């Protein structure tokens, strides 16, 4: 109970500091526009007036926190959740593709890692090319990929999920290759003396020992999957999802809309990462590793 309270207090303090800094930045960044406007109108502008105006611009360079909150609130409550104008609707679209992509990506990363740890041929050949695959700026060619997939008749959620998977499999792969190799010599030797099969070694030793690595990489992986989905949503006809919201906000210079979509995305990411964290705690607790 006290722990909870302390955590909350700490978070609130940090948030408060950030909000104050944010307001200060908003005033500074947005003031140039106000000065320009004043100069164009040929008038002088005082500090209180400046602050008031910088925090209430329509297209601020940096919207003030309350503007973003208002934008979020409006996006969520103004229309029915099934309406295209509702942020929750778009978040839902993005979420489904993210989860599908993450599931695909994490599974692929895990399987590849298992393969790499067990097969020397795979270790030698796949790993360098898995790395090279990530250096292909998939985000840069996502539009092309979407177009090519569409021409193959793959449309809707799947292309987005594929791009999300492409981004999320890599952190899982790298983390798990390390994690599966983390058991030390003695732990492995023990199983060797019992002539445990590779599968047994995997399930009884390598997997449990790799859990800290697994969860660290799953957290990165799910965040990457979200980024992938959002990027894939930009060109996928730019219709639905948080990515499309970001884009149209961008297109019309609606900074407040951009920031609300951005925060919606971040909230989604935070929820997803927290969900992975909750699973982690649960698993570690059940395994007696949470000390």
């Amino acid at each position, binding site marked *: 109970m006290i722990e909870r309270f302390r955590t909350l207090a700490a978070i609130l303090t940090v948030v408060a500091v950030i909000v104050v800094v944010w307001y200060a930045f908003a005033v500074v960044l947005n003031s140039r526009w106000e000065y320009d406007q004043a100069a164009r109108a040929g008038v002088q502008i005082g500090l209180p007036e400046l602050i008031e105006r910088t925090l209430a611009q329509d297209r601020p360079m940096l919207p003030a926190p309350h503007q973003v909150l208002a934008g979020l609130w409006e996006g969520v409550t103004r229309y029915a959740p099934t309406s295209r104008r509702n942020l929750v609707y778009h978040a839902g679209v993005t979420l489904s593709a993210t989860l599908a992509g993450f599931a695909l990506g994490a599974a692929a990363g895990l399987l590849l890692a298992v393969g790499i740890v067990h097969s020397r041929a795979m270790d030698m050949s796949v790993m*360098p090319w898995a790395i090279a695959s990530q250096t292909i700026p998939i985000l*840069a060619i996502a539009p092309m990929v979407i177009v090519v997939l569409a021409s193959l008749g793959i449309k809707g959620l799947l292309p987005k999920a594929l791009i999300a998977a492409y981004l999320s499999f890599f952190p899982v792969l790298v983390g798990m290759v390390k994690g599966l190799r983390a058991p030390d010599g003695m732990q492995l030797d023990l199983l060797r003396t019992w002539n445990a099969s590779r599968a047994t070694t995997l399930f009884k030793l390598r997997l449990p020992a790799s859990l800290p690595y697994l969860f660290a990489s799953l957290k990165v992986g799910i965040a990457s999957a979200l980024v992938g989905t959002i990027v894939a949503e930009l060109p996928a006809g730019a219709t639905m999802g948080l990515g499309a919201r970001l884009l149209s906000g961008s297109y019309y210079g609606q900074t407040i809309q951009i920031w609300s979509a951005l925060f919606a995305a*971040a909230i989604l990411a935070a929820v997803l990462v927290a969900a992975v964290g909750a699973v982690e705690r649960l698993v570690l607790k059940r395994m007696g590793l949470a000390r």
Partner: protein
Amino acid sequence: MSWQGWAAIAFWIAATMLNCHIANRWYRSRWARPFVATLFGVTLLVLWEGLVRGLNVSPVILPAPTVIAARFAQSLPLLWGDFTQTILKGALSGYLIGCGAAVLVAILVDRSPFLRRGLLPVGNFIAALPIVGIAPILVMWFGFDWQSKAAVVVVMVFFPVLINMVAGLAATDPLQRDLMRTYSATGRQSLLYLCLPAAMPFLFNGLKIATTLALIGAIVAEFFGSPTRGMGFRISTAVGQLDLPLVWAEIAVAALAGSGFFGLMTLIEKAVTFWHPSQRAAGRGA
């Protein structure tokens, strides 16, 4: 499918068998690893070439590797210019700043229970802002040139490095921590002598993931405004001009640079974490 396609598939099967053979028989020799990796890559390229030719894929959808190679050779100065702009200026500076900041914040978070409680969740939240949303804003703030790309890279690499580093700093075993307590080591000392070394395997995990993210970040950020050079700029304009060979030449540059970068980090990792069980062949645990 015409004969080229079948030939490529035959080559693929043969090469894979050769690879397995070498990996199982000759794995002790120095040349095995690079050889197997190269052969695997060559196989992919041959397969690609064969299928593109065999299936008559339109060059504006997917050009063949030979066509890409020709375009690559022909536009070296252009590619070099884009490379300097995007990778040397944008990605590298952003990577250094971003990873440095993440390590520092991770240390702060690990040192201070207050920050661990307060900053970590908030930091996670902020770092989870998607790059495509941030890029336009950062371009707006930092201008069109490489500085804004570096800023995007900073934001992008921060989260993975932070998460891994925090996990790493916590990955010391209780006995090792107790030892530090009996020395009444100061916070700085246990950090320097215990937590930092113990965190290295995790840190490098993050640093390696971050190398590829840095490239992606720098390239994608150029979509949201850039001078008329840079890899992202070139890719997006070349797609518009249906100059797909140039697009793929740029991608090849990115892949080469990225693999080189990653390889470099792997070498450093080997040198720094030689003691970790994953880096030693066999041992009996320390």
